[in-house]
C-alpha cells in the first residue's frame, strides 16, 4: 500500500466580497501519495492556486481538515507549521518569487536560515551542487533580475530542494517561460520525481502539461471535476 503524504477532507475556502460570499473551493477531498507526480488542472479562477496554498500550509481552509502524513494540522502551532513549510514542502511559483536584493546563492540558501534543527549536510555545498546540476553554476553572486526567466525558475527549484523536502508544489512553473525553457523546467521536475522519489504537484491550465503526469486532478469552479 502506498504511503499517503497529504490529504484534504471536505475543504472549503470562502471569501467575503463585500456582502457577497464567494466560494473559491467547495468540498475538496483529495489524497496524494508519497512519490506521486500529480497535476492539478482547471481554467483560470477555478481555485487551483488556492488549493495548492492550502496543501502547502500557506493558507488555511474556511472549513475542512488537512492531514500531513496522517496528522491533522489543526493541532499544530504556527511555529510548527512554519517549520513544515521549510522542511516538508518546497514551493515553485509562476512569478519565481525570488528576493531581488539577495544574490542567487543567498536566495537558494534562504530556507536554511529559518531551520531550527541542525542540518546533516553543508547547505552551501548542496546549493552549489544543485546549481551545477541545473546548469546555473557560476551565477552564485548574481542577482535575480540579472538572469533569464528560465534561469530564475531553476534557482527557485534549487531553493525548493535545498531542504530536501518530500513534496514540491509548483504553481504554473512554466507560465512565465517560453516553450523551450518551459519544457526544460518540466523535464527537471519529472526527473526529481523519478530519480529522487520526490512527490511533485504541478498546477497548470495547460492540458499538454497535465498529460505528462501520471495523475490529473481537474478542478472547475472550486470543485473536483472528476
Amino acid at each position: 500500500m502506498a504511503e499517503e503524504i497529504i490529504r484534504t477532507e471536505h475543504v472549503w475556502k470562502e471569501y467575503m466580497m463585500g456582502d457577497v460570499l464567494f466560494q473559491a473551493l467547495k468540498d475538496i477531498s483529495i489524497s496524494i501519495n508519497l512519490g506521486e507526480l500529480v497535476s492539478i488542472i482547471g481554467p483560470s479562477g477555478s481555485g487551483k492556486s488556492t488549493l495548492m496554498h492550502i496543501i502547502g500550509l500557506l493558507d488555511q481552509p474556511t472549513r475542512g481538515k488537512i492531514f500531513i502524513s496522517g496528522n491533522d494540522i489543526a493541532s499544530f502551532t504556527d511555529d510548527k507549521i512554519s517549520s513544515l513549510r521549510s522542511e516538508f514542502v518546497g514551493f515553485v511559483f509562476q512569478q519565481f518569487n525570488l528576493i531581488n536584493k539577495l544574490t542567487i546563492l543567498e536566495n537558494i540558501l534562504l530556507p536554511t536560515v529559518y531551520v531550527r534543527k541542525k542540518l546533516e549536510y553543508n547547505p552551501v555545498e548542496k546549493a552549489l551542487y544543485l546549481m551545477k546540476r541545473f546548469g546555473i553554476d557560476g551565477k552564485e553572486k548574481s542577482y535575480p533580475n540579472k538572469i533569464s526567466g528560465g534561469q530564475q525558475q531553476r534557482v527557485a527549484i534549487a531553493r525548493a530542494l535545498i531542504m530536501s523536502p518530500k513534496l514540491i508544489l509548483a504553481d504554473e512553473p512554466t507560465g512565465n517561460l517560453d516553450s523551450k525553457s518551459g519544457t526544460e523546467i518540466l523535464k527537471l521536475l519529472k526527473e526529481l520525481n523519478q530519480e529522487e522519489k520526490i512527490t511533485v504537484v504541478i498546477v497548470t491550465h495547460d492540458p499538454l502539461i497535465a498529460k505528462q503526469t501520471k495523475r490529473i486532478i481537474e478542478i472547475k469552479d472550486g470543485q473536483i471535476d472528476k
Partner: protein
Amino acid sequence: MDLFRNKMRTFLTSLGILIGVSSVVLLLSFGLGLKEYIRQQFDSLGTNLVFVIPGQIFGNSGSGFSGMRSVVQFDEKDFISLKKLRDAIYVIPIFTKSIKVEGNAKVDYATLNSTTDEIFPARNLELEYGRLFDKPEVDKKTRVIVIGPKVIEKMFDNPVLALNKSLRIEGQTFKIIGILKAKGGGGFGGPDFDKFIYMPLKTGYTLNPDKKIANFLIKAPDNKPFDLFKEEVKMQMIKRYDEDEITVADSAQFISTISSIFGILNMVLVAIGAVSLLVGGIGIMNIMYVSVTERIREIGIRRALGARESDILYLFLSESVLLSLFGGAMGLTLSFLVVLIVQKFFPAYIDLMSSIIALGTSSLIGIFFGVFPARKAARLSPIDAIRYE
C-alpha cells in the same frame, strides 16, 4: 540589510536620533563641565577649608524662614574659642562689608574683608605688586590694605601707580601696600574676588564699631580625617550656640548646593532634548511602516520558505534598532567633536554614563518605535503577503 542599500533614507531617518542624542549628551556634558568649573573655582580659593557661618544656610528643616530669624552674631569670643582647636592650621576671622572707595579723585565700590594675614595662604592669594601685611601689622592695627586688581581699575591707568598711594574708604584713609594677582570669579552671580580689599581685622574695627565677625575660615590639617575635624569645629561652636544657629560647612556642600540648582535647570534642558529623541523615534516608526509596506511580498516569500512570525519580527526590529543606534552613535560622535572644541573654553566633558545613556536610549527607542511596524509585518498572513502586488 536594507539599511545599507538605502543610504540616504537611512541617514535622514536617523538624523532625528542624531540631533536628539547629541543635544542630550551635550547638555549633560555642559552640566558636568559646570560642576567641574565650580569645583575648580572653589579649589582655587583654597582646599581643606571649613566655613563657620551664622544661621542655617543649607536649611535642612525645609523651612524657608530660617534666614529671617534673628541670626547670631560672631565676635572675638568665638575667635578665641576657635583658636583653641589645636589641629587647625589657620583660624581666620573675616568681617565683610560693601564699601565705597575713593582714590585719585574717583569713586568706586568694593568689598571689604577685615581679617588676618593668614587669609593669603589659606585662599591661595598671590601678590602681583608690593607686599602683603604680616602678623605684627595685624596686631598693631596698622592702617594698610592689600587689594584685588579691579579695586583701583577705574582710578589708575596702571595698577603699579596705586602702590603706596592711599585709598579713602568711607571717609578714612588707608595705604595700599600690595596688589593681588587676578583671581577671576564674578561669573554665575558669585562674588568678584578681584574687587576684594583685605585689611587687618582690628584696623577694620574703625569701619566695624560693633567688632562683629561675619564668619570664620578654618584650614583643616592633612593628618586628620576632614569630617572628624569638621565635627570638632562644630563641637567648639555649639558650646556657645545652638546647633541650628550656626552652619559648619565645607566647599563640597556649597558645590553640591550650587550644582543641584543648575542640575534642575539642566534636567529641564535634557527633557527638551529628549523631545527631539521622541520625534526621531516617530520618524523611525514612520519609515519602518513604509519599509514593511514595500516589503510585503518579501515577507510572504520568507514565510513561505519557513520563516516564523518571530523571525519576521526580529528582521524588522533589528533594522529599526540598528537605524536608531546608528543615529545615536553618530550623535555621540558629533557630541565628542563639539565637546573637544568647547573644552578650550569650558571644562565640559562626556562621561561613560552619558555615553551609555546615549546608546542605551537609542536602542530602546529603536525597540519601542520599531516594535509596532515589526509586529504588523510579523502578523501579516503569509498568503495575503505573497499574493500582494
